């Protein structure tokens, strides 16, 4: 579902890059040409991208869990099909993104291992629980909505495979966002119980959605490299502002109250002014102290561990088939 601005700064390795190659690389980026897997690239660019793309892929996969929590309880067959298809799309996004990262020289197994050992991060939003059916709509509207703000600029990312994956992913995400909003609209037109569920879901997910854009620019780790390399094109606060500006009028149409007493429209700037997210909660969620962090990782590790015998069987069978084919060929010769 989506990438988060965390840890994008990469520790520089001691080795100096060849200045001529570096200049040609930067010139290519400045001409808005794509960098492809076989092109020369500085080690730090590669490392930054591997970190960001794998983090993004992990977020898609872990993101299947909070929504998956409602699949067996969806209240109509139509909603069940839509939710299943959405969660499946996220699995598909994870696949494209792992493949995009693999073009940079890391294997899916290594990335999965990094996720399972806690070495790699994923978006903090998925460490929040989905507690009522309206959460499914609110995740679509707010979480996919925030993801789209982050991801639209990534469609122009300098690294070709990532940019191309993002184009496809963004199309699906905007469909998810509209679907989530429509789910909430339907509930708002329903009973008082349903309206309360929507308000409750938005109360819980609004701030975590704002935190998806990462720390405030003033506290953000150095993103100069990512900006110069055109991996990142807007700062965290710029993207957050765009999201707030787009979302507040949608909340008004929906008829819910966003849980921020400081939220107001500023005539002078033409933007909404909003309060300060609880960054302590954010950093804690990133560190593993969110209410669902341990549960999410445990579920991922369990699926992987429980499925080990299946993957091993598939590999063993493929090996036997190959041997049989080769034996057949030799016998024919």
């Amino acid at each position, binding site marked *: 579902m989506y990438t988060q601005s965390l840890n994008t700064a990469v520790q520089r390795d001691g080795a100096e890059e060849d200045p001529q190659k570096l200049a040609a690389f930067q010139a290519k980026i400045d001409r808005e040409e794509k960098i492809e897997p076989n092109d020369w690239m500085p080690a730090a660019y590669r490392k930054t991208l591997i970190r960001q793309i794998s983090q993004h892929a992990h977020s898609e996969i872990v993101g299947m869990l909070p929504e998956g929590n409602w699949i067996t309880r969806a209240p109509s067959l139509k909603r069940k099909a839509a939710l299943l298809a959405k969660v*499946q799309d996220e699995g598909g996004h994870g696949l494209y993104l792992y493949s995009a990262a693999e073009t940079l020289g890391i294997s899916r197994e290594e990335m999965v291992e990094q996720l399972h050992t806690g070495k790699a991060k994923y978006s903090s939003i998925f460490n929040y629980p989905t507690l009522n059916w309206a959460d499914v709509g609110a995740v679509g509207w707010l979480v996919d909505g925030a993801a789209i703000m982050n991801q639209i600029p990534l469609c122009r990312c300098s690294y070709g495979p990532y940019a191309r994956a993002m184009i496809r992913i963004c199309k699906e995400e905007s469909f998810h966002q509209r679907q989530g909003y429509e789910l909430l609209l339907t509930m708002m037109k329903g009973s008082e119980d349903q309206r309360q569920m929507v308000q409750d879901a938005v109360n819980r997910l609004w701030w975590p959605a704002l935190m998806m854009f990462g720390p405030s620019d003033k506290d953000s780790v150095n993103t100069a490299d990512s900006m110069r390399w055109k991996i990142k094109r807007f700062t965290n606060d710029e993207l957050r502002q765009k999201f707030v500006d787009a979302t507040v009028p949608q909340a008004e149409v929906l008829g819910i109250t966003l849980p921020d007493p400081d939220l107001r429209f500023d005539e002078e700037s033409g933007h909404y002014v909003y309060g300060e997210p609880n960054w302590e909660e954010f950093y804690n969620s990133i560190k593993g102290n969110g209410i669902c962090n341990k549960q999410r990782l445990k579920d991922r590790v369990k699926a992987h561990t429980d499925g080990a015998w299946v993957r091993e069987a598939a590999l063993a069978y493929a090996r036997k088939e190959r041997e049989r084919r080769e034996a057949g060929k030799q016998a024919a010769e």
Partner: protein
Amino acid sequence: MANDLFTYTMRLADDAAILSQRLAGWCGHASHLEEDIALTNIALDQIGCARLLYAYAGEIEGKGRDEDALCFNRNEREFTNLLLLEQPNDDFAYAIVRQFFYSAYVLLFWQALKSSKDERLAGIAAKAEKEAAYHLRHSAEWVVRLGDGTEESRSRIEEAIEFLWMYTGEMFEMDEVATALAEQGIAVDAAAIKPAWNKSINEVFARADLSVPTGTWMQTGGRNGEHSEHLGHVLAPMQYLQRAYPGLVW
């Protein structure tokens, strides 16, 4: 006759709904991403099929019950799905064998139902047949991989085959409802497709050197609403919101 047709259509709808609910339990939890996506595809096909069948059953009944009223507001004893399909996802081998036994049957079933004199059922069968052919190919490939994979996968799939075998007989039962409709050229003579099903099972099992169980005692009851203990647990989460907040639009 309308009553028989309703009963018959509901059986097929319940089969699809209960299997989709079981398969949906894998989403996000399968052994690897590719298989997660594949199992979800099969679940989505089953939901699509359930929706068409419930909607048609509701029209036949003519009491204003729509697909959701029929799926979410009936009790365990009113559900008439096959016992095989409510069996739990004990592990991937159970899920694959359940799918394989059912897909091998239902592909033949839809092929026959395509010539039903009831045009709506024939139309649904034509769509479902294409999907079932894919489900059968997918599950059969896994039967072979697990049977001829590692020692562990072989022992797991042997266990699942042995356990689920006793639920396969029910697929070929013909009761009064099915027989009356078959005589009118509407329903499928399920007993008649059994030899082709046996052949399909034998061929796939032979590829992995798996034995077909010899047990002949078969469980029955699903078509009359007499289920295993599992069905209640399938329905409880599925129907929770509709039961807790009746009569709402979601």
